């Protein structure tokens, strides 16, 4: 607002990008990181809506005991596809969406190091996702094995639908897409930083993307391998996981979680990065403890490779103290991040436009998710909570209260940069409050349900005292989350109907993307400010005052 009066950086030049819009072929063939970022953003958001509708369907079924709307088979497919979509077709590509759009801009580059590889990774992801969803067209229906696909239940003998094969193949493709993207982000961060931008002057978002990318390079090949082994078991007579042929079902769990736990941080770190960008801007202060945050990010990344078997405590096939201790330890750097965000807000000059509301909501909700994570990291406690709604509540606390709130903070924050238009504040506030209240109503009752022993992945449950009430509250909350999307979508549509009116730096922000026009020209920059700290645009703005 005030920044629009004092433009810094070059003006104009945004017409070049707008002039090209509407030409479908240029979108299909684009290698521009910004357009690929937008494609990722729109596609993964589309998958998010599908996954969200599946969740609303499940919540509707669970409102009261008994089977009202769906049968078991439909329900099993719904939670399988909901989890798969949210993890692989929404969460992971959403990382690629933000990273594609922002990494070159934040490091002051014209594009990614490998633009065509970048386009390839988007299209692999999109078609992989469509293949996963196409399971619904198979005779036996979509995959019905849970997003974790535990063997032997996912072997052909027990899951006979072709949907499960499509699930395997589609996920393998999206996995390759993710790996290609990670190579590109890593190379761009190492190779394309503008003169003056040392690693320790790099925006926190880029640091988080760097660490998440390296995690992807370690974790995703394990998934790809496991999926290939499962496909061989199902269709080509192998028996990697079949105990009657000498295979081992626990091997799948090791491979899956060797990918799956780093994946949790792949879905968390980039959005930690967004929070680390948003909070300083609306606190009018630098990030508290930048170096500590870098250290914490690297530590989380390294440590997340050694905690995978805490998903397997109840198998009795692993070393419990080792994985308990490593899982506890990772709470320390995560705590450092939370304290540093609060430290940034402390003694700041806070304003609360929608991005900051989501960032603040993130802190509160993520703290609960982190604490309950420490509870389930203790094997004696996990023996009770494993596979109950306590775990469901915990993981949604981290991935919705954490990651999705971070995503919305990022969308509201960078929407002016991407489109030249602001999202309406009143609709944004409506969106935020319905999501905050909706989240609390949906997920906090699930902790109690889990403590009472309600297992997950049940379409029906016993009418034990309190369960119907808690489930009904949870369903009402989920409805609020669903309705909360209406003001958001309305804000996007209304904004896109207006002419662009945002200056280069509408929020008075810190990193290089705010130096160029909104939206940026094709090659991003016509000039760069001197980079002498992690806040070059702040430095330039202050030196002009």
């Amino acid at each position, binding site marked *: 607002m005030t920044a629009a009066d004092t433009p810094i950086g070059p003006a104009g030049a945004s017409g070049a990008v707008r002039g090209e819009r509407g030409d479908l072929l240029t979108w299909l063939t684009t290698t521009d990181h910004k357009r690929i970022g937008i494609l990722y953003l729109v596609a993964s958001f589309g998958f998010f809506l599908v996954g969200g509708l599946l969740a609303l369907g499940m919540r509707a079924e669970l409102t009261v005991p008994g089977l009202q709307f769906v049968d078991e088979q439909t329900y099993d497919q719904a939670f399988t596809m909901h989890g798969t979509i949210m993890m692989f077709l929404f969460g992971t590509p959403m990382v690629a969406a933000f990273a594609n759009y922002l990494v070159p801009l934040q490091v002051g580059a014209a594009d990614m190091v490998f633009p065509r590889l970048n386009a390839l990774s988007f299209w692999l992801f999109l078609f992989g996702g469509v293949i996963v969803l196409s399971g619904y067209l198979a005779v036996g229906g979509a995959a019905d094995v849970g997003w974790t696909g*535990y063997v032997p239940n996912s072997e052909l003998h027990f899951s006979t639908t072709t949907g499960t094969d499509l699930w395997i193949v589609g996920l393998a493709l999206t996995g390759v897409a993710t790996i290609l993207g990670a190579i590109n982000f890593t190379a761009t961060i190492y190779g394309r930083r503008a003169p003056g931008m040392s690693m320790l002057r790099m925006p926190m978002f880029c640091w988080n993307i760097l660490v998440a990318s390296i995690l992807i390079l370690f974790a995703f090949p394990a998934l790809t391998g496991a999926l290939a082994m499962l496909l061989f078991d199902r269709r080509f007579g192998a028996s990697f996981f079949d*105990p009657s042929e000498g295979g081992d079902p626990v091997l799948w769990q090791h491979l899956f979680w060797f990918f799956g736990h780093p994946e949790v941080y792949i879905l968390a770190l980039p959005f930690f990065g967004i929070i680390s960008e948003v909070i300083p801007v609306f606190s009018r202060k630098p990030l508290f403890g930048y170096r500590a945050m870098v250290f914490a990010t690297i530590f989380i990344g390294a440590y997340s490779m050694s905690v995978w078997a805490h998903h397997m405590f109840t198998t009795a096939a692993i070393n419990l103290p080792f994985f308990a201790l490593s899982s506890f330890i990772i709470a320390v750097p995560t705590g450092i991040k939370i304290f540093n965000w609060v430290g940034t807000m402390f003694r700041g000059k806070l304003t609360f436009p929608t991005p900051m509301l989501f960032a*603040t909501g993130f802190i509160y909700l993520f703290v609960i998710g982190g604490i*309950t994570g420490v509870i389930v990291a203790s094997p004696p406690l996990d023996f*009770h909570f494993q596979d109950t709604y306590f775990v469901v509540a915990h993981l949604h606390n981290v991935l919705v209260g954490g990651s999705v709130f971070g995503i919305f903070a990022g969308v509201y924050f960078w929407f002016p940069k991407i489109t030249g238009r602001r999202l309406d504040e009143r609709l944004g506030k409506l969106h935020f409050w319905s999501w905050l209240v909706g989240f609390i109503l949906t997920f906090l009752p699930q902790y109690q349900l889990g403590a009472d022993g309600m297992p997950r992945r049940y379409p029906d449950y016993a009418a034990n005292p309190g369960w119907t009430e808690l489930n009904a509250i949870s369903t009402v909350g989920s409805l609020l989350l669903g309705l909360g999307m209406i003001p958001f979508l309305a804000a996007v549509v209304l904004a896109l109907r207006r002419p662009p009116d945002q200056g280069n730096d509408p929020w008075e922000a810190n990193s290089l993307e705010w130096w160029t026009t909104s939206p940026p020209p094709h090659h991003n920059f016509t000039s760069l400010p001197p980079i002498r700290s992690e806040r070059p645009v702040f430095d330039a703005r202050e030196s002009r005052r």
Partner: protein
Amino acid sequence: MITRSQRSIRGVVLAAALAILAAGCLPAPATEEAQQVTTLYGVFVAIAAVIALIVFGLATWAILRHRQKPGDPLPDQSHGSLRVEFIWTAIPVLIILGLFAGTLAVLGRVDAHNPNPGVELRVEAFRWGWTFSYPGSGVSVTGITPDGPEAVLPVGEPIKIVVASHDVIHAFFVPVFLFKRDAIPGRESAFDVTIDEPGTYRGQCAEFCGIYHSRMPFSIRAVSRAEFDQWLASQPRASPPAEGSPVASP
């Protein structure tokens, strides 16, 4: 005006309410092991409540007290403080080491195997039901009725429960035991429980095992040793080998 003490009381009440809301209360424990788990959980929740209170308190304080007013200059551009970073790194390290010590202590109890269990119960899971048998006695209970089979066990003595599966992975879960164990085909695993209180306790499958995963209930009826002996003697016994399809050997 609200006094400082009123405010701190409100804070404590809020934190307690939050902790209960967020973490949930466990069911009353029915085994000696579960009592230890309940105590450990209480410690975790108490520490969690204190940490949540500190973070929420500081964040809420900042939100309420550090708002930008029109015309405010930039705040002090503090880049952080090494001392503060050290404090909020060191204290959590100490806390998690404490939690780890508590975890090890309770794990030692929950994971202990008594060399002379009073009774051994063999649990074989299959799609979609359970077979309970008492090795050496020839007694075996299979049930796929709506309520599932019932295992009768004596109270007040260590019971060895061996879990196995015929097909996919299931999990043997009794909520009031605060314990579950996966039933994995090709492996057997055992754990001990000592049931405190007579009663009938429901259980169910906790690992997704296919379409009727939610229809695998069972129950445990805990009785005195005398009643248990009487019950066992009254059961029809199959001539060995006991009924039921073979389980893949580990």
